[in-house]
């Protein structure tokens, strides 16, 4: 462990702008802080907020990498601040809010609003009429299938894939990897009775699967390592087939 003398002085450059405050123009502001052992950006920002600048805005909830609240641009790359250790970064660290989402202030963005709109648009729930007798034995499912569904359900809606997406920067309504992954998840689930033709209605256009330019920033930067590249490629093939079928029969 470092002794006090050896500890680094970190320079934290933050892109600041609070639309609620007329005295807060967009600007870069620098804070200095002494590094501590196993210091995370959660610890850094909390310390700055409590001791240097009470006006600095940021979002943390679980501080354990599972709730998806604290995504931001860390040295230009989207990531979860709470589980980013400063020892893996240089002495100069630049923080900025996630692009694409509505800015609340400084490092805080409104991912919640974006995600709810996406869920409403894609209807991200099992469509099955919900007529089960709760007293009766549950319907069976293959253990492997349950595991495969969970594999895709691990998305934490942090928004990193959207911030890393070229299409999302240009097209406001683009579903993005988060939405496409959800369709892939429900498509896998026999409890959702929607067919490919139904899913095509949700994502069979340029705001959906055909808007993806395959730059795959989403796949590279997903904090949960979701298999976004394979899911998007698979979904694109399925939707293409569905679209062709629809055209030939219609």
């Amino acid at each position, binding site marked *: 462990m470092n002794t006090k003398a050896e500890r680094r002085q970190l320079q934290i450059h933050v892109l600041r702008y609070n639309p*609620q405050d007329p005295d807060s123009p967009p600007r870069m502001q620098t804070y200095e802080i002494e590094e501590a052992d196993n210091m995370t950006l959660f610890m850094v920002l909390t310390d700055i907020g*409590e001791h240097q600048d009470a006006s600095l805005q940021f979002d943390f909830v679980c501080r354990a990498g599972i709730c998806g609240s604290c995504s931001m641009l860390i040295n230009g790359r989207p990531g979860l601040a709470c589980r980013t250790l400063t020892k893996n970064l240089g002495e100069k660290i630049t923080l900025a809010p996630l692009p694409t989402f509505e800015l609340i202030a400084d490092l805080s963005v409104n991912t919640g609003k974006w995600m709810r709109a996406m869920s409403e648009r894609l209807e991200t729930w099992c469509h099955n009429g919900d007529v089960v007798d709760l007293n009766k034995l549950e319907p069976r499912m293959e253990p492997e299938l349950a595991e495969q569904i969970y594999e895709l359900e691990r998305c934490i809606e942090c928004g990193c894939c959207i911030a890393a997406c070229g299409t999302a920067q240009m097209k406001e309504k683009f579903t993005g990897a988060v939405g496409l992954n959800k369709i892939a998840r429900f498509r896998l689930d026999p409890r*959702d009775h929607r067919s490919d033709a139904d899913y095509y209605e949700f994502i069979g256009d340029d705001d959906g699967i055909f808007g993806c330019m395959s730059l795959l920033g989403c796949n590279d930067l997903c904090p949960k390592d979701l298999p976004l590249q394979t899911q998007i490629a698979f979904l694109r093939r399925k939707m293409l087939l569905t679209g062709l079928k629809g055209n030939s029969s219609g």
Partner: protein
Amino acid sequence: MKIVYTDVLVIGGGLAGLRAAIAAKRRGHDVHILSLVPPKRSHSVAAQGGMQASIANSIKAAGDNEDLHFHDTVRGSDWGADQNVVRMFVNTSPKAVRQLAAWGVPWNRVRKGEREVFIGGKSAMLTESEAAHGLITVRDFGGTQKWRTCFVSDGTGHSMLYTVSDQVIANSIPVTERVEAMSLIHDGQRCYGAIVRNLVTGELSAWVARATCMATGGFGRIYRVSTNAVINQGMGAAIALETGVATLANMEAIQFHPTAIFPAGILVTEGCRGDGGLLLDAQRHRFMPDYEAEKKELASRDVVSRRMEQHIASGAGVNTRYGDHLWLDITMLGEAHIDKNLREVREICQYFLGIDPVSDLIPVRPAQHYSMGGIRTRPSGESTNLKGLFACGEASCWDMHGFNRLGGNSVAETVVAGMIVGEYIADFCQGTDSDIDISTAQIADFMKREQQAIDSLLASQGTESAPDIMREMQTLMTDQVGIFRSHEQLQEAVEQLQLLRERSKDIGLSYKSPAVNPELVTAYRVPRMLKLALCVAYGALQRTESRGAHYREDYPKRNDRDWLRRTLATWPSSEQSLPNLAYEELDVMSMELPPGWRGYGEKDFIEHPHAASRLAEIERIKQNMPDADRHEIQSALMTYEELLPARYRGRNQRLRDVSE
């Protein structure tokens, strides 16, 4: 003045609130949810290991049923729980699991044939039946007679929260995010909603409702070392307390989870031990069997946490510059199992500790984890003192956990209580009792009071720093009101908290914006958190016995003779420096399971004078019905069914019922 009218106002967007909202909405009521954060970011998401329900599909759950779940939960509670509520809960929990399955939760399933498991660190082979293949499986958790914890890898809370949150969207229930309830609108008898602050714009509005449901979670952040999310500051319980009417119960009953990673305090699931992981000391010695011959690492959480601290105090911990810790060893489980069933644990270890639990030991030490206490309610979820105010989940003291809750019973409580309380809210809204007869002038008074409080904080020339007071409170609670408690420490804590409360009246702000302003938020929350902390510390000081998670070194025995009672705290006037405490007796003569030894932990306790006669009476009742089945015997001992909404009274089918 902005006033919003709705039938049901749900405050809190975690599992309990969301599930209650769905219940009320499906009954045709207008429902609106308010949340500090987007609902999918709520702390429910952090429940890793699973949800207890006696569905009994796996070979290791064979023979499990509501009776065993009931007995385990009551023993776990150290007889502090309301046994009627426990019965309501255990009968509904399998239904909740099955409903969540229908809604899309990908519960892990039974795979037929042989599989290797680890029990107490040793390999064993299990053979699952063909008949059970594809049904929902379970893992082992502490304090249970059978394997009973349904799970989705170690992201159970995540899957449940996402599924239920998406059901809220499917039911078109609006959620207003980034708002905070500042006070309840009430007239001393009836609650009419809340004054709400928009955390982005700072704007206040009044939300007026027939029924108000508090589902704001726990208050772990009054402690410095806690597994809780940073938003778990207990504001729902605090503003209920500030009505001066609603009561908070058993606030001294605080759970410490055995395995928080050291020193960050982030949780790693009880599933680590349930799946076969062991606790080791500095000498790599497995010490739990020395203390708990029967349940070892899988005694209840209060017992394991206490034994760990006891072992550390004996000098057997690993010394570091941040203090001492012990080791959690899951290396024997192997990479495939860890990747499949404990992957969040692996990620947390990799990111926060830089170690890999496949090959490395995990440094752990107990940390504050759960508040058994909260807003005291009837079995319907309605406040015992304030009509129209309901509470469910961790924010409430419904009271199914008593003085210690079992792992897997809290995430289960969120949905089960949501289902049940949601029905009662719907019933309430259908009656004329819920008519809204408060004038806009009265509402304006509540609004004015909150606006003035904020204005005076912003204008304050005070010299105290809100974050400093917060930190001092948290340190005090962790150091003095922790796992081991004594009169001197608690007395000192109460005095110090009172001083902090005095100082909090002189808080000044360095940033004076009325809109988005975290310092302002801390400034108005700290005095409320101090009230909660005083309820905890003062309640603990007064309770001169040890029960569940409340352990007094100077009164080490459970004392049923004098303390088989629930603590009730009220705070009628903000001028008071301490809460009023009153006590509610638990009636031994109506208990289905009268107090006895839990089967783990300390064997010595002071008996209740009626315990023996109730036990004899139970034996008599049972002997008089030799041909009765377990349901008939249960009803003869304690009637609870009429407390359950009719739709949840049905008997739960199990595999053995089908195959017979």
